[in-house]
């Protein structure tokens, strides 16, 4: 593997550099398509539609062919017809399953709609349209998230994260930093939960040492402050905004939250929306977004 990378290093460098310099209107559909292919295709379209025999079974196969046709006709990637078809299908799916659809899928639907609408904007203003509205949309959804976290009695008190810390395998990496057998605690709780469910008993979790609750509170507060910062920075009028601040704070949020928790859907869609706010000359920021994406995919697909 390393030998292959070494022998093709020059070519890889040239290719990746050419991707970094792509105009926004070329880069965003490309990355969006790629992520749609590796994530949405196998998660969203397969997850909900199983009750609709024609529309979401036969229709799904037709959509799959339609979607894969881009590999043979790359021009389709920049066509309003192509994205219009995908958007229409996606929205039928969303509306039909609205209350049970995950939030990141709804965000993807919003983004999909904005992206499709951008085809009807004059070519000179299209990139600005995408930049402005992807930024505003991110600000808006983080505002909603902050409102929910503020009114919830569970979040700032640390309850949500405490329960997750006690019973979610995503946090096992914390074992390195904790002065007790954290992995053992989680395993014990998972076994308890399984037993309680089997025996029709309320779940009883071993609460672990009090420091875990303190850590949960601290982590909750950190996430809250970070989300609040994103809300403010993304919704702030342009004249008050710090240069590029939105990219760095979004990247920090993605790396600190979605990496350890492996929340793939939000990570992908926020990265695409972040990329939509970059220009061809912002090479460092684009490298960061694409680098974060590549590392995540490598970890997610190759390691876990």
């Amino acid at each position, binding site marked *: 593997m390393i030998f292959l990378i070494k022998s093709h290093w020059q070519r890889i460098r040239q290719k990746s550099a050419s991707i970094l310099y792509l105009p926004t209107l070329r880069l965003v559909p490309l990355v969006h398509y790629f992520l749609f292919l590796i994530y949405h295709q196998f998660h969203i379209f397969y997850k*909900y539609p*199983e*009750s609709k*025999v024609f529309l979401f079974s036969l229709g799904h196969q037709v959509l799959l062919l339609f979607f894969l046709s881009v590999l043979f006709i790359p021009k389709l990637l920049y066509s309003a017809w192509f994205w219009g078809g995908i958007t229409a299908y996606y929205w039928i799916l969303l509306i039909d*399953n*609205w*209350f*049970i*659809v*995950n*939030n990141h899928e*709804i*965000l993807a639907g*919003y983004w999909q*709609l*904005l992206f499709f*609408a951008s085809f*009807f*904007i004059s070519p000179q203003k299209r990139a600005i349209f995408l930049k402005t*509205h992807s930024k*505003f*949309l991110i600000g*808006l*959804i983080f505002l*909603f*998230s902050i*409102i*929910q*976290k503020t009114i*919830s009695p*569970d*979040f700032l008190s640390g*309850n*949500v*994260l405490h*329960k*997750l810390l006690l019973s979610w395998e995503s946090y096992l990496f914390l074992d390195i930093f904790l002065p007790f057998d954290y992995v053992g605690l989680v395993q014990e709780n998972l076994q308890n939960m399984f037993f309680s*469910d*089997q*025996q*029709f008993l*309320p*779940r009883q979790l071993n609460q672990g040492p009090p420091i875990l609750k303190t850590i949960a509170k601290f982590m909750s507060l950190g996430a809250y402050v970070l989300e609040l910062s994103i809300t403010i920075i993304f919704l702030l009028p342009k004249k008050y905004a710090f240069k590029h601040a939105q990219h760095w704070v979004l990247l920090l949020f993605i790396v600190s939250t979605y990496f350890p928790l492996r929340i793939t859907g939000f990570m992908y869609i926020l990265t695409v929306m972040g990329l939509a706010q970059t220009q061809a000359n912002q090479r460092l920021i684009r490298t960061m977004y694409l680098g974060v994406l590549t590392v995540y995919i490598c970890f997610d697909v190759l390691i876990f």
Partner: protein
Amino acid sequence: MNFKITKKRFLLAFYGGVVGVFLIHLVLTLVSNVSPWGGGGFGMFSYSFGSSTIAHIHLKKEDAVFCLNEKTLKKFSRNKIMYSHSTHQINKQVQKITALSTHKYAKKIVEQWFSYRWLYNPQEKLYFIQEKDVAIPSGVTDVDFDSIQVVIYDQWSKKETFSVEVKK
């Protein structure tokens, strides 16, 4: 039609929709059991309840309780049980109840429960788990019962129970 007006109208409708969905979802999560974890309210990880659901279906007669042998129902829809690789199991289960004399009531309660589930703590994940102690013994094809009880647990044991009397 002026293009600028069309763009303005689209954006107004778009953001109006986004905010509208959020507000409707927020109100529903406050006044009913709609899950804050989905539906465009962007409240995932804000609440400690509402990310998965466990249910038991009981056939009851006086002190006797039989828990249906349903393990892996995963999908549901607004007004019908969804078909999926696992859903044929619930269909099979419903057919099994159909073999009983009071089949239509058992079927009705399962369907009824699903029918308003879209507004009643709708979750992506629903697990039917059988209590081993009160499972219908293998080989038994007929169970006498006079009420059907559905017990729902969310991820953190918030319990909700309802039952329907079977009319003889």
